[in-house]
């Protein structure tokens, strides 16, 4: 019981500290902006640990963070193998191929308003569909290896990317296209110098959505068949054996991978669209 009390006290103290920090000038600094959420996250962990210990929750229901950390430390090679299989071989190639294909398709249909008017509503609709449902079919086609996982990811990211890129290509202002016309710019010049840069914020918006979809696709596809490693495989088998500490370890890796992928996309976005109002501070 004392562990729980202690955790609650830590939580309250940290919350009070955060309230004070948020009201102080520190909150305006970069350091403060990173510190406050970090304190919040850390106290969540403390609270979790206290809850598990204080209430004596069985590890088959919720293992303590310390137990999960211990599990991660002892099973690094296995986690790495799963990570490589699911993220490096499944999610990332699929993400790149799917986004690339969407980009090429968008540019290809750019000159045909007819195709755009036909494809866009369908693309919008398909983007809202539960495409994960294709996973079993693609696993049947491409086998249990990483290829089927990459294929699921390709299909999942394709439509949201397509819709975003097509919208982005239409984002340049009429006046700027007129200017290009007064200079006698060719279609290609207008595309490269004006419309593609103007489309970048939309492209990155799509990439951010796609980066989370990629992980979902790669993991779900493994539920339908995989070699005897991979994050989805590990999660579903460990859940069956009630090895929840291992499941949480995989989740921690997935969370890290997801945040990392998103973070990388966001960093590139910052670098390439520094000029966009949303990136200026």
């Amino acid at each position, binding site marked *: 019981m004392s562990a729980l009390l202690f955790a609650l006290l830590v939580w309250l103290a940290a919350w009070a500290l955060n309230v004070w920090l948020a009201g102080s000038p520190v909150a305006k600094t970069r350091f403060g902006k990173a510190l406050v959420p970090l304190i919040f996250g850390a106290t969540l962990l403390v609270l979790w640990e206290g809850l598990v210990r204080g209430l004596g929750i069985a590890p088959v229901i919720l293992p303590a963070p310390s137990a999960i950390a211990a599990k991660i430390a002892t099973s690094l090679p296995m986690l790495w193998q799963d990570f490589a299989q699911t993220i490096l071989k499944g999610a990332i190639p699929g993400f790149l191929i799917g986004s690339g294909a969407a980009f090429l398709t968008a540019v290809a249909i750019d000159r045909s308003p007819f195709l755009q008017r036909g494809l866009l509503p369908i693309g919008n609709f398909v983007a809202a569909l539960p495409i994960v449902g294709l996973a079993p079919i693609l696993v049947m086609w491409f086998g249990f290896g990483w290829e089927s996982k990459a294929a699921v990811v390709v299909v999942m990211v394709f439509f949201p990317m397509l819709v975003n890129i097509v919208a982005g290509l239409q984002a340049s*202002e009429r*006046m*700027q296209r*007129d*200017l*290009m*016309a*007064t*200079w*006698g*710019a060719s279609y290609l*010049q207008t595309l490269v*110098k*004006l419309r593609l*840069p103007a489309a*970048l914020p939309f492209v990155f918006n799509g990439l951010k959505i796609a980066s989370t979809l990629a992980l979902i696709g790669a993991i779900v596809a493994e539920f339908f068949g995989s070699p005897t490693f991979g994050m989805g495989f590990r999660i579903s088998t460990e859940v069956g054996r009630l090895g929840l500490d291992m499941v949480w370890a995989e989740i921690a890796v997935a969370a890290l991978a997801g945040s990392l992928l998103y973070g990388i996309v966001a960093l590139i976005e910052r670098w390439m*669209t*520094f*000029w*966009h*109002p949303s990136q*200026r501070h």
Partner: protein
Amino acid sequence: MKDTTNSAPVIEAKGLNLVFQTADGPVQALKDVNLTINRGEFVSFIGPSGCGKTTFLRAIAALEHPTSGTLTVNGMTPDEARRKRAYGYVFQAAGLYPWRTIAGNIKLPLEIMGFDRAEQDRRVAQVLDLVELSGFGKKFPWQLSGGMQQRASIARALAFDADILLMDEPFGALDEIVRDRLNEETLKLWARTGKTIGFVTHSIPEAVYLSTKIVVMSPRPGRITDVIDSPLPKERPLEIRDSREFIEIAHRVREGLRAGHHEE
């Protein structure tokens, strides 16, 4: 400096008509427009919205295509003239690309037209100096004030040395004080470069202050109701706006606008 007394016609419109097909039926944007603009003139187009002043400017730049009549620029069709880089166009908004620096923006038309690197740099420096923005080349547009952005867009239009400068309410979005200064600078620029300038505005003082020729237009259908040749001297300090001649011309423009209004 070019010879500005040369009176060869640069832009000639004869019986020009332009009809837009809209959802509510055809709209006559320009009706039977006849106008000759000579080399080195500063011509203002003034009138209420819908009078076709912008449409006419866009037709000169080959951004719109007349339904009938003839329109020649330097003796060519507007499309040919555009390919010969006959005009620079300045819009109401600066329309600078936010991902390019000021220098990069001015370089953009030069890149498209295939100037080499060294020439690009030389011209950028030259026009930045012309609009008094030297030292701001490395800034991004959003780091500059609205007036400075508009000056940069004028520099961009000047960079490839077209004879004709078409300006569509370039200072319409700026406040009066900045506008006065830019008007003065535009006149200086015109005197220094000797370009032919077509200038759309809805401000009577601006039109009278800047122009050698004022074209008064009326809407529905868009047409020319009066063409006024200004007797004001080439040297025009801001104070000229209090002189009697200035007030007389302004009065005539106002009368012209009112007459066009009554005919509806």
